[in-house]
C-alpha cells in the first residue's frame, strides 16, 4: 500500500545505522509508544471537544464555535490557556503529595494503553500474557491519585470527594473484575491480543455469549471513571469540585486528562473483551487474504476506534441525560445488584462451558477446537447464546429476590398523582370593578 511505504523506508534507513535487534526491540517500540501516546492525548483532547459538542446538541445550543471552524481548535486553545496559568499550591497543602498526585493519575490512565491491541500486527505495542490483570492492576492505581489529591489539599470538600471516590472505585472494581471472568472462560487466555484472536477464530463477539458481563463491565467502568450518573466524587452541586477543588491551571488539567484517558481506556478494554476488538466480519477476507497486509491493519484500527467511539458516545449520552445517584444508592447498586449479578454470571458461564464439553464428549459436536480460545460449532454457539440470554432472565429473577424488600425497588409503583382541587372562591381582596370603563379615563 502506497500510503505505508514510508514505514519500510524508515526501517531500511534505521538498519543502516543500528543492528537489527536494536531496531526491532528498541527503536520501533519507542516510535510505537510515541505514536500511541500522541494519538491518545489527541483522542482525549478531542473527546472533550466531542463531549462539549454532543452536550450542546442535547441541550439545544451550539457548543464551541469560535476557535477555528466549528470550534475545532478549541481543545488546543484550552490546553494553551491552562499551560500558561499560574501553578497555585494552597498554603496548608502537603506540597509534595499535592505536586505528585496529578502525575500518578495521568500515568496510571495512559499506561494501560500499552497493552491494548488497537489492531493486528504492528498496531500492538506490547502483548503481555497477563494483559487483563495488568489493566485491572494499573487502573486501580488511579484511586491512589485521588486519595492523595484529596488528602493533601487539606480541604474538607476535597477530602469528602476523595473518600467518596475511593470507596466508589474500590467497590466497583470488584464487580468489574468478576464480570471479566465470564469472557475469559471463552477466551482461555489473559492476553488482550489473545482475547481478540479467539473472538476472531470463533467469528463471534463475546457480548453475545456474555450479555450480562458486558452490561456489568460497562456500568462498573462508568462508575470507576467517576462519570455521571456516578460522578459523586466531583459532584459540583454538593462538593464544589470534589478531590480537585484546590487544583488549578495545568495540574487541574492533568486530572481532567486522566479522567478522559481513563474513559478511553475503559471503552478500549470493553471493546477488546466484548465487542471483538479490531475484529470485524469480512475485513480479513477482503484485505489480508488478497495480500494487502498494511491495509488490513489500518482498516482493523479504524474498526477498533469506531467501536470504542460508540461506547464513548454512550458515556456522553448518559452524562447529559441522567441525574446523579446519591452515595448510599451508589453503594446499593454496586454491592446489591452488580456484585450478585457478576457472581451469577460466573456460575452460569462455568455451567455453560461444562455442558458444552459434556455434549462434545457424548457425541454431539459442539466444540471445534480449544487451541486459540473456545471455538464452537454452530450448534455449540446456539447453546452458548441460549445460556447467555437465559442468564439475563435468571439474574433478573435472583436480583429481584435479593432486592425486593429494599425501598428503591418498586419506585415506579410509588409514583403518585397529585390531587387537583377546585377551592371555593373567597371574598375578593380587590374591589370588583364596574364594567363601564368611563370612570377611569386618563
Amino acid at each position, binding site marked *: 500500500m502506497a500510503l505505508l511505504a514510508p514505514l519500510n523506508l524508515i526501517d531500511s534507513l534505521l538498519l543502516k545505522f543500528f543492528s537489527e535487534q536494536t531496531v526491532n526491540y528498541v527503536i520501533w517500540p519507542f516510535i510505537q509508544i510515541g505514536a500511541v501516546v500522541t494519538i491518545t492525548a489527541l483522542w482525549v483532547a478531542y473527546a472533550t471537544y466531542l463531549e462539549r459538542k454532543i*452536550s450542546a446538541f*442535547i*441541550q*439545544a*445550543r451550539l457548543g464551541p464555535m469560535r476557535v477555528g471552524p466549528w470550534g475545532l481548535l478549541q481543545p488546543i486553545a484550552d490546553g494553551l490557556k491552562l499551560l500558561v496559568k499560574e501553578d497555585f499550591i494552597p*498554603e*496548608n497543602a502537603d506540597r509534595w503529595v499535592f505536586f505528585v498526585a496529578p502525575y500518578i493519575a495521568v500515568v496510571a490512565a495512559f499506561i494501560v494503553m500499552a497493552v491494548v491491541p488497537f489492531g493486528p500486527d504492528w498496531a500492538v505495542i506490547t502483548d503481555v500474557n497477563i494483559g487483563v490483570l495488568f489493566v485491572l492492576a494499573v487502573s486501580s492505581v488511579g484511586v491512589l491519585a485521588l486519595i492523595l489529591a484529596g488528602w493533601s489539599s*487539606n480541604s*474538607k*470538600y476535597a*477530602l*469528602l470527594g476523595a473518600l467518596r471516590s475511593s470507596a466508589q472505585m474500590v467497590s466497583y472494581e470488584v464487580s468489574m473484575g468478576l464480570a471479566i471472568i465470564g469472557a475469559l472462560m471463552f477466551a482461555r487466555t489473559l492476553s488482550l491480543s489473545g482475547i481478540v484472536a479467539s473472538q476472531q477464530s470463533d467469528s463471534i463477539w463475546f457480548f453475545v455469549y456474555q450479555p450480562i458481563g458486558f452490561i456489568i463491565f460497562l456500568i462498573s467502568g462508568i462508575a470507576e471513571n467517576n462519570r455521571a*450518573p456516578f*460522578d*459523586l466524587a466531583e*459532584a*459540583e*452541586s*454538593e*462538593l*464544589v469540585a470534589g478531590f480537585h477543588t484546590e487544583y488549578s491551571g495545568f495540574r487541574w488539567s492533568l486530572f481532567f486528562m486522566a479522567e478522559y484517558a481513563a474513559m478511553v481506556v475503559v471503552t478500549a478494554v470493553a471493546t477488546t473483551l466484548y465487542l471483538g476488538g479490531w475484529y470485524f466480519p469480512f475485513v480479513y477476507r477482503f484485505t489480508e487474504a488478497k495480500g494487502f497486509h498494511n491495509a488490513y491493519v489500518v482498516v482493523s484500527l479504524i474498526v477498533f476506534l469506531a467501536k470504542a467511539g460508540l461506547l464513548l458516545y454512550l458515556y456522553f449520552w448518559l452524562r*447529559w*441525560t*441522567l*441525574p*446523579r*445517584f*446519591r*452515595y*448510599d*444508592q451508589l453503594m446499593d447498586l454496586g454491592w446489591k445488584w452488580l456484585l450478585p449479578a457478576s457472581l451469577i454470571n460466573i456460575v452460569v458461564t462455568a455451567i455453560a462451558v461444562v455442558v458444552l464439553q459434556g455434549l462434545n464428549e457424548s457425541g454431539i459436536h459442539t466444540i471445534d477446537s480449544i487451541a486459540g480460545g473456545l471455538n464452537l460449532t454452530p450448534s455449540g454457539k446456539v447453546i452458548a447464546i441460549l445460556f447467555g440470554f437465559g442468564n439475563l432472565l435468571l439474574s433478573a429473577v435472583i436480583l429481584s429476590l435479593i432486592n425486593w424488600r429494599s*425501598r*428503591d425497588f418498586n*419506585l*415506579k409503583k*410509588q*409514583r*403518585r398523582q*397529585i*390531587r*387537583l*382541587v*377546585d*377551592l*371555593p*372562591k*373567597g*371574598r*375578593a*381582596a*380587590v*374591589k370588583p*370593578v*364596574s*364594567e363601564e*370603563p368611563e*370612570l*377611569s*379615563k*386618563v
Partner: protein
Amino acid sequence: MHQVEIATTQQTVLDSPVMTLNMGPQHPSTHGVLRVILKLDGETVIDLDCDIGYLHRGMEKIAENRTYTMIAPYWDRLDYIAAVSNGLVWVETVEQMMGLDVPRRAHYIRTILTELNRIASHLLWLGTHALDIGAVTILLWAFREREEILKIFERQFGARLTCHAWRVGGMPNDSYDDFEQDVRRFIGNIAGRLDEYETVLSENRIWLSRTVGVGVISGADAIAIGLSGPALRGSGVAWDIRKARPYAAYADVDFDVPLGDNGDTYDRYLVRMEEMRQSRRIIQQAIDNLPDGPVNAKVPKLIKPPIGDYYHSIEGPKGEIGCYLVSDGTQQPWRMRVRPPCFMNLQALKKLCIGHLVADVVAIIGTLDIVLGEIDR
C-alpha cells in the same frame, strides 16, 4: 487557617468524628449567598445552621425615605426571579389604601403577566433543582422557555429581569401590538415542553430515588413553620390566595389547585409542574376574554394614602408575598414591612435536612425554591 478536624469525639473504631462543613456563601447550589453550616457524622447531617444576611440592603428602611412611586422598583429587587409578581403586591396595596378603581383591562393584563412570571420562576426552579440533583440538560431546556417569557417582558416593560412592571393605578402603557400573538404562541408551545421535561424526570429511577421520601414535612408542621406556596401545598394543605382572596382578575378565571399527599421533594416537584399547567390555563382564559378599554385609573398627582395601616398579599411563585403598610398621610410610608415567602420557607430547612445526607441538603434547598434577595432584603 483551619486544618481538617481529626477524630476528637471518637470513642470506638466504628464511631466517626463530627465534621463541620461550611457550605456557602460561595457554593454552587445554595442559590445565591446562603451560608449553611453543617455538622456531619460521616455524610449524615446531624445539625445545621443557616447564616443569612449577605445580601441585606435594608430596603424596608429605605422605603421610609422614598415616595410611594419611588418604592416600586425596590420591590423588583426582592425576588428578582419574580419581579412582576412582587411589583403587583406593592401597587395593589397602595391602590387599595387609596381606593383607586383600576380598569378591568389592566387587571387582565396583570393576571396574564404575573402568571407568565410564575411559569418563568418555576422554570428556573426546575432547571436549578434538576441541576442540583445532577440532571444538567433540564436547566438549558428550561432556560429556552424562560427566554420566550423574558422576551415578552422585554417588549412590554423594556426590561427582562427587574421589570418595574406596574404603576399605582394601572400600567405604564397598554400592551404592545403583538402581545396577544406572542402570548398565544408561548402557551401553545409550553404544554408540550412541560410533557418533555416530565418524560425525562418523572419516571426516571434515579430522579425518583433522589426525591421520593426526601425532606418530608407534614401539613401540620408546614403550617406551624409558616410555609406557603407550593411547599405548603406539597404537604396537602389546600391554601391558595388566588382562590381564598382573589386579586387582579383571578375571580373571573377557572383553575385547579394541585395538592400533594406526602410532603416530600417529589410531591413538591409534581405540584410545581402542575402549577405551570394551571398557569397556562389561566393565561388562556385571560387572553381569550381580554377586555378593551383604558389601562389606567384616575390617579392624583401626589400619592398620599389616608392615615392607617393595610395588609395585602398575593400568591407569588414562591408563596404568599405580602406587604404591610403604615401610612401617616404624607408622601412617604411611615413603615413598610415585607412578608417574604422564601424567608419563611427557609425556616423549614433544618427540620427537613436532619438525618439526611449531604447530597439531600442541596436537593432540599432546591425544593424550597429560595431566592436570597428576598430572604436578606
